[in-house]
């Protein structure tokens, strides 16, 4: 088991942040599994700091208009639309 055991409230908190509802049975199962997995991740603590030069370059392009999806195509998979818009639940 981990030095910092995971409790069911931790799992519920993270699930809230991630916007995933969980059944009570899932919370219990994940609590046990996360303790094992996070305990295994603890070994990352032994990794030395590494000086590395990231191989990154800027990729620039001209800002040109291209053909894109039509409004109809963009909406074709939405469960609900109205007047050419996606329709979602209220925000607050």
């Amino acid at each position, binding site marked *: 088991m981990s030095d910092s055991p995971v409790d069911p409230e931790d799992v519920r908190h993270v699930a809230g942040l991630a916007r*995933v*509802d969980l059944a009570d049975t899932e919370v219990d199962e994940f609590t046990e*599994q996360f303790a094992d997995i996070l305990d295994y991740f603890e070994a990352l603590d032994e990794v030395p700091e590494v000086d590395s030069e990231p191989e990154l370059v800027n990729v620039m392009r001209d800002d040109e208009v291209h053909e894109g999806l039509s409004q109809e195509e963009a909406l074709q998979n939405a469960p609900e639309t109205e007047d050419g818009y996606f329709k*979602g639940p209220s925000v607050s």
Partner: protein
Amino acid sequence: MSDHNVFVTESTVAGDDAGPLADRTIAIKDNMSTEGVRTTCGSAMLADYVPPYNATVVDRVLDAGATIVGKANMDEFAMGGTTETSAFGPTENPAAPGHVPGGSSGGSAAAVAAGDADLALGSDTGGSVRNPAAFCGVVGIKPTYGLVSRYGIVAYANSLEQVGPLATTVEDAALLLDVIAGPDDHDATTHDRAADSEYAAAADGDVDGLSIGVITDLIEGADDDVVETFEASLDELESQGAEITEVSLDSLEHAVQAYYVIAMSEASSNLARFDGVRYGPEGDREGNWNDSFAAVREEGFGPEVKRRILLGTYALSAGYHDKYYKKAQDARAWVKQDFDEAFEEVDVLASPTMPVTPPALGESLDDPLQLYLMDANTVPVNLANLPAISVPAGDVDGLPVGLQLIGPKFGEETIIRAASAVEE
């Protein structure tokens, strides 16, 4: 079609009349967008999703003359190594009935192994092309990061994943790589290096004078009979003129940890888009946004996907970012350095592709951590952005074993040449 549950959707899409893949059939992993043909990603969340456009790799295989025969089954959102987390049921290994085909591109490898398609496309984030290639006894290539466009692929962990070919021979896999490789305006991470590649021509079986370093760290955790089969294939290469040496890479001890922290973190962000508004199951519109969002995601995602989203969210959350994510990035840089140093000494590196033979169907999913550890030999390659190939090395009591050959960045020709010698 065979009865191994290879395809989520069987659908025929004819390509151009002429081209390097004319008269060839191909299976496409179901995380690659196909215009007008549903693309589920193995998830209930996308069970009815029909893309309005093709992924770049899909356009390229059609332009090259291939005929698509179906969308291949896969672990849900490519999260798994057995193709058992698919919402559409597990795929059976045609080369080892009763066993898993590996994953996450298990349907793609099984399609080729069963003869349901001549060729297949898979995607490899931590081994998802090489693992099923090894378990199904076929060839699979994970290209250098940036060689192949990811445009139109449902994202899991962008910094790690590449689309790769599967086929029954090294030459056919290389030919398919020639077709899909090269720059794409729609993916700014693609490189112009492979614009005029001739990978298929490299499959000439000439390993005379080639130096191959065996990664001892990846032998230690492998089953004895897998190691014996692996060593027999190296002996064969040595008899053809290759020089075999041993190398050790200390950083690899932390590769699985680093891979899962990075992949889960990226997944937790990428999968935020599945909110039931633009696609996915219809949520309860009566509640507020957050309630509706959380209910849709409870319904649409399976257990492994939830597990990775939650652990990724945890690793990026306040107070834990430096402990997990930053350390994982350090480990990734260390793995890259270790590989760079090794390639100053040898031309290619070798290991068994998988440390085990394919597990029996239904035997692995209870213990997620054990399943993650099965990826020990494949994930270092993704962390270091390198190319690697899995080629059949033989079998243990009828269960296929793969040989993994790893090359330096953009060293696809070298690993293709070496792998073709294994087939001799």
